[in-house]
């Protein structure tokens, strides 16, 4: 009664000799290659293949490599193969012995419910009563990986991050750029902290919606435009008003958020505005508050205008600027995230004396991404004591 279900493998002895011959050949083959033997039902029809030997570099659609593939059954491991032209080609090659190069095979599997595609170019040949297969992955994912590597490289060129804190007129500065754990988000976040030739300091962070090279290149343009406009003595509100028009005109496909601030060390005033971006936090002692002066995000409304808020800072004040990966969390409100961050900063600062330089690193350490899937930028500045002002202070007024 089990006749119909019986599966027949080639005689064990013959199989091990064939496997050894195939392995010798595969051992010297570059790339992905395997030799498998058919499993037949009682009537002799091929129902599956079992992989007997593989090349050292072989890798399948699931990321299994080399020896991990030995013993796997093709249909069990790749159920979506059944009834595809590729499967038909497997059977035909075993039947006729004529080698084939099936047309490009698109392997689709649901990973986390999202269809996951990989394209393969395969070659099939009958060898010693088994099937010799070689395959090359040529898919968008691979191209995406390459693009991600390129984007990461581009990001470093466009925005080299200084690991150690540095000083600007009237300020100590620490910054961090943390790429996303999953590369899908790479490329959108940026910061800028630079002394202007009139003695003021430009501080800014921003985020470009999107990823990859397109986002990185838009990020580079925005960052350079903001810097250029700041050198042309525009205040933060004028900078963002112009930038919004520029973005609407040149890159209508790009949405961006930014926080731009200009610090005037001579009287310790900070002028700032933020376009669609979470507000910066001001930490004074162990008290942390939001500096809110919001405007609409960039690149959507051509006639948008912005205004500046102004605040007089005190020595040792900390300004904390960041991108939304630090407070964005599933099922939670951005402002709840902001409150959590404020509380964490207050906690981290409480034990440290107000004038201590350790406050800067304490804040950096307390700024932990809420969402590791997003890239994040943090820019923290501490107002230095009077008398520590740099040489480029311009006269008041």
């Amino acid at each position, binding site marked *: 009664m089990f006749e119909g279900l019986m599966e027949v493998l080639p005689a064990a002895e013959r199989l091990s000799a064939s496997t050894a011959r195939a392995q010798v050949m595969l051992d010297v083959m570059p790339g992905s290659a395997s030799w498998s033997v058919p499993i037949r039902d009682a009537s002799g029809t091929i129902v599956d293949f079992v992989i007997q030997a593989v090349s050292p570099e072989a890798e399948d659609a699931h990321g299994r490599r080399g020896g991990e593939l030995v013993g796997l059954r093709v249909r069990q491991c790749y159920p979506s193969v059944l009834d595809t032209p590729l499967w038909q080609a497997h059977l035909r090659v075993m039947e006729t012995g004529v080698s084939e190069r099936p047309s490009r095979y698109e392997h689709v599997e649901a990973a986390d419910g999202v269809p996951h595609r990989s394209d393969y170019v395969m070659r099939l040949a009958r060898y010693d009563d088994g099937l010799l297969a070689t395959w090359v992955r040529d898919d968008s994912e691979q191209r995406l990986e390459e693009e991600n590597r390129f984007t990461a490289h581009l990001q470093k060129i466009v925005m080299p991050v200084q690991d150690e804190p540095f000083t600007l007129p009237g300020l100590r500065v620490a910054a961090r750029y943390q790429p996303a754990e999953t590369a899908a988000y790479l490329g959108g976040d940026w910061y800028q902290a630079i002394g202007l030739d009139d003695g003021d300091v430009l501080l800014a962070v921003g985020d470009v919606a999107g*990823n990859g090279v397109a986002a990185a290149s838009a990020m580079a343009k925005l960052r350079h435009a903001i810097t250029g406009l700041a050198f042309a003595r525009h205040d933060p509100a004028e900078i963002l008003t112009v930038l919004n028009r520029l973005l609407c005109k040149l890159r209508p496909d790009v949405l961006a958020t930014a926080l731009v601030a200009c610090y005037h060390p001579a009287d310790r005033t900070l002028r700032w505005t933020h376009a669609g971006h979470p507000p910066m936090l001001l930490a004074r002692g162990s008290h942390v508050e939001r500096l809110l002066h*919001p405007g609409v*995000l960039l690149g959507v409304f051509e006639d948008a205008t912005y205004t500046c808020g102004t605040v007089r800072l005190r020595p040792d004040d900390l300004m904390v600027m960041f991108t939304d990966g630090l407070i964005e969390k599933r*099922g939670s*409100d951005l*402002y709840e995230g902001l409150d959590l961050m404020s509380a964490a900063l207050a906690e981290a600062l409480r034990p440290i004396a107000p004038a201590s330089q350790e406050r800067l690193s304490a804040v950096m350490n307390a700024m932990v991404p809420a969402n590791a899937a997003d890239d994040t930028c943090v820019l923290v500045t501490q107002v230095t004591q009077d008398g520590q002002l740099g040489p480029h202070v311009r006269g008041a007024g």
Partner: protein
Amino acid sequence: MSDLRLETPAALFTARAAEGAAVVAIRGSFDHTVHALAADFVDKVFAAFGPRLIMDLTGLDLLDSRGTGLIVNCWRRALGEGGRLALVGTERGATRILWITGLTTRIPVYPTVQDALDGLPPRT
């Protein structure tokens, strides 16, 4: 016009006709992971229902910058095709970002779908 539906483990998109407009409801995560599928879905909505849209975001637990970008594109497209787009959401939870980004200063937002339908100008 038959209803449209797209379901992934992370998000559920539905669209139905109501009072001369399409009501598009998005539940779950509207983020980069569903962005491409969502863009296709939106194309189908425009093709099936035209450019008068209500987008109900009250069932979202995550709305990121890519999702926000798609909403902006829908709004532009609806206006460009002579229609309207209104949102349904509140100034807390995932939809808080609509206020932080300032989009609510230009794109109408209502607390309920019915309010949004009532707020649509009559078809000309």
